[in-house]
């Protein structure tokens, strides 16, 4: 799409004018709105480009609170620890290894995963439950990590916030925390927009391309993400997938782009794994051995 080239070439203010046009879910604002929006977006764009990791983490935390307000963390200590540990390991192979990354499973049957600036990553229990192996989990977590690394959310938020008063951004950042203040409430609304409209479609494809590399760097088969996309390609647009479908390109389009980008370029690496016994055990705890099949016979043999 031409939007990417334009965005790279032009100034912040111009780019923020072009972004809505490049988005698949763009609404066309009136001319007066565009002019006013450009003024605001330039100011906010400058702010967002300069924010520190700490500021990004603060924004990300407030946005993660929205998702967690809609679907809380799953009550699954072993699963949470497993996902947190794997996520940390994958993030260490990204370009922002020292962010305070946080990973969690949210308690919903829907198929989805979310991330917010500063290193917050949430995966739905429904999606996790349907995975075939750990490489698939690594692929999905790496996709979200890539969004954070490339600051895709900040670009999307910038677009949503363009009509909002942004004068107290510094007060928000310097403030005591919590969600008080004009900027904070604008941010929450912008965050909700982002979660229901999704990120730029090209950012999704870019995150897919980065994800397979991050997974391979960390020792996993780069085809895990493709496995998840195949799973998603086989399901109808039923309720449990509605939000994911609305916010992402179609799985078959993502498969096609990923196939073209990967070719056989990641096929030559030795020792990459599809699955680990610990992941199998995590998801399917072995039932206790049937009492009828156990002890007495063996005991007798040992004595002889």
């Amino acid at each position: 799409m031409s939007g990417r080239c334009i965005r790279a070439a032009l100034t912040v203010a111009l780019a923020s004018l072009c972004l809505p046009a490049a988005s698949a879910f763009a609404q066309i604002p009136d001319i007066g709105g565009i002019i006013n929006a450009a003024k605001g977006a330039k100011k906010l764009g400058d702010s967002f480009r300069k924010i520190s990791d700490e500021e990004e983490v603060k924004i990300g935390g407030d946005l993660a609170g929205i998702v967690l307000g809609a679907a809380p963390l799953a009550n699954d200590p072993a699963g949470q620890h497993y996902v947190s540990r794997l996520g940390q390991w994958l993030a260490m192979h990204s370009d922002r290894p020292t962010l305070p990354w946080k990973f969690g499973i949210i308690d919903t049957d829907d198929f989805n995963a979310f991330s917010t600036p500063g290193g917050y990553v949430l995966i739905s229990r429904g999606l996790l439950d349907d995975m075939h192996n750990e490489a698939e989990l690594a692929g999905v977590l790496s996709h979200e990590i890539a969004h954070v690394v490339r600051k895709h959310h900040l670009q999307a938020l910038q677009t949503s916030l363009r009509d909002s008063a942004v004068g107290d951004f510094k007060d928000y950042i310097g403030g005591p925390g919590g969600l008080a203040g004009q900027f904070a409430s604008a941010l929450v609304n912008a965050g909700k927009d982002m979660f229901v409209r999704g990120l730029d479609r090209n950012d999704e494809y870019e995150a897919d391309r980065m994800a397979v590399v991050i997974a391979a760097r960390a020792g996993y088969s780069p085809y895990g993400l493709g496995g998840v996309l195949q799973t998603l390609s086989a399901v109808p647009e039923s309720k449990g997938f509605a939000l994911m479908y609305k916010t992402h390109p179609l799985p078959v389009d993502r498969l096609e782009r990923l196939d073209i980008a990967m070719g056989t370029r990641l096929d030559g690496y030795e020792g990459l794994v599809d699955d680990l016994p610990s992941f199998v055990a995590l998801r399917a705890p072995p039932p206790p051995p049937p009492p009828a099949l156990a002890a007495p016979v063996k005991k007798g043999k040992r004595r002889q």
Partner: protein
Amino acid sequence: MRALFALCPAAMLLVPLSPAVAAEKGLIIRAGEMVSEPFIDAAKAGPVTANQPVTIVEKRGGWTNVESGGRKGWVRTLNIRLEAGARPAGSTGQVASLRTGSSGRTVTTGVKGLDENDIRNATPDMAQVAQLSSLVVSPAEAQANAAQSGLHEQQVAYLDKGKTKEKGK
């Protein structure tokens, strides 16, 4: 022992097979050539066309062995989408309330969704954010676990968008 043998076949049926194995039906995404072995320079094994139905025989990383119209060959794994409704019996998801015990959970009765309205109506929950922060695993623990699990780190360069002969993108 006779009783044991009699029980075994039934018990085996209860063990879920690896969900990625056989009997999955797929559709070719882009037209191309099958190859006779899972290598890019292997002998050609016949053409496939877009949307051609195939039966998935075996997956091996980037390659998948398929059968279609009496012919067998290997195609790129990412060049296959799965046919709607053709997912293996052990897998879950399409209808969450029919979920099996394959993930070690009991059957879900009330389906908890997360749709657009849930997001729109959400009140940010900062206590949950704090709880999320408490789950963090240190890099040292992640590293130690990876070593113990036998994961092999690799140096891998990022990918560009790539090119295809069929379609200029």
